[in-house]
């Protein structure tokens, strides 16, 4: 099994300090950077598959050069090598550009499965993994809760989260899969993993290395943020600290007033 996982560095949600800077772009200095949650779930699933079936897990990132720091965290979990597309021309890249660049970079690699996240915790567009599948002309198995490849049959089965539960999908490999939290908790890197990650190879590519016309607008994105404001604050509510039976009466009164019971 050769699995390539697209991993995006995002501000650590645990720091709860994500914000846009004065240039209306993500302020990357405001929070430590981590691998996007959904990408980590995909990476964990990939590592478990390769532990069972043999093969290789590699990661693919598009980020500024400092992105290697975050990639080391994924390598410490067990990914064997990384590909980083870093290019000043990509600063502030929008969704279609990200799709073009990641698809072109993925096309330089050999893989049976290409994994991405369902969405990210920063941009949260949820369009990139599907877009990459379209560029590569590969089947898309989205919102994965379980991934089961059949190497002999050259097919993969995925449980796809649906509104009511899940659908069982099957497609030939190579295929593109978008990953969710339901795949399971990612491992913590072991000390050995952290040591090993230092010597694992990260190949850095520029846009020119990828060839083709990836920046048709010459690095000017038509998608632009015009302004940003804080969310409206909700009017302060009432706090009840009464004993349970009294509290219950107050809740019921509130519900009755608003015709909810």
């Amino acid at each position, binding site marked *: 099994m050769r699995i390539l996982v697209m991993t995006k560095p995002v501000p650590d949600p645990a720091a709860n300090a994500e914000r846009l800077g004065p240039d209306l772009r993500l302020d990357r200095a405001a929070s430590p950077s981590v691998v996007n949650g959904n990408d980590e779930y995909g990476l964990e699933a990939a590592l478990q598959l390769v532990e069972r079936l043999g093969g290789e897990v590699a990661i693919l990132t598009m980020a500024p050069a400092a992105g290697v720091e975050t990639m080391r965290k994924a390598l410490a979990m067990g990914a064997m090598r990384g590909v980083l597309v870093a290019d000043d021309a990509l600063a502030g890249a929008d969704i*279609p550009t990200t799709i073009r660049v990641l698809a072109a970079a993925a096309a330089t690699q050999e893989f049976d499965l290409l994994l991405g996240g369902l969405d990210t915790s920063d941009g949260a567009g949820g369009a990139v993994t599907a877009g990459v599948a379209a560029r590569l002309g590969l089947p898309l198995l989205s919102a994965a809760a379980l991934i089961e490849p059949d190497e002999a049959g050259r097919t993969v089965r995925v449980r796809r989260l649906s509104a009511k539960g899940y659908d069982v999908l099957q497609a030939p490999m190579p295929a593109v899969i978008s990953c969710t939290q339901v795949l399971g908790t990612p491992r913590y890197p072991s000390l050995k993993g952290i040591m090993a990650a230092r010597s694992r190879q990260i190949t850095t590519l520029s846009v020119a290395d990828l060839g083709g016309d990836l920046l048709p607008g010459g690095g000017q994105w038509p998608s632009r943020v015009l302004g940003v404001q804080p969310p409206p604050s909700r009017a302060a509510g009432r706090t009840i600290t009464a004993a349970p039976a009294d509290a219950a009466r107050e809740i019921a009164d509130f519900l009755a007033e608003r015709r909810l019971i």
Partner: protein
Amino acid sequence: MPPTLLVIGEVADGHLTKLSAEIATLAAGLAGSSGGTALGLIVDAAPDGAAAELAAYLPRVVSVASAAAADEVWAPHAAAEARRLLDEGVTHVLAGVTNDGRDVAGLLCGALGWGVLANAAGATWEGERLVVEAVVLAGKAITRSTVDAPSAIVTVTPGAADAVGSGAPGRVESREPAGSPVVPAARVLERVAEAGAEASLEEANVVVVGGRGVGGPEGFELVDELAGLLGGVTGASRAAVDAGWIPYARQIGQTGKVVRPALYLSLGVSGAMQHRAGMQGSQNVIAINRDPDAPVAEIADLFVVGDLFAVGPALSAEIRARRGG
């Protein structure tokens, strides 16, 4: 040239989803205010019912009876039909922020290279530019953004508009499917519904939510009981889902479902930003939590400090008593 907005309709159990109706209303309004037009697309094995429902909002609906949609994934087929309509001058494609809607948006973006305005909570014209408002970074900020190009793909969140019919039903045009999906479509071998799946969280008027504080799967019996009494549906925080107490389909929040009920009642939920992202459009919020400093206090209309295992049953008894007498 005036814009032409295409609404990608979604179907659940043979009916148009509430979100699709909202998006259609938004699109009809945008068409009206720009001298443009709006049309809808339904791709389904049996599209007629939903197509007629969508036509209540839009002057024209293209209805594609796609046998393949029954046993293959939907998005590559829907994206192919949408692409076919682009020849008719479509400038903006609007899809819902659902797994299917985002798949269509992503597939079309990859295929066409159009810009994407993600997670629109509202949209207006500023001159010829479509400007959308989006709640970003787990609710920490609201952005206004645009695409400086004649065409764009827009994904729309629940509540961007209230669904209001146009008063004059539109024309439904039936079509044969285009044939080839935009990417090879995966086969659907089986569709599995989990317990409690009949009740749609997104469409519920009352949502009762259990968090880590309910302590285990048994704790959801109390949540279910209150939901039953209030005519509502049970939801959960991610902590409860990750613990395996309740299926993911019940999760509310940034990575779960977005609900906008008349009443949101939570038990043992702390109110993290990522959870709020899925419920802040609720009209009335009641939270029961034993920690007086829980962040959920900031968004609750009624914040009850107490043990959910005492207040919950007392509330249940109180409601029963009022109904009985």
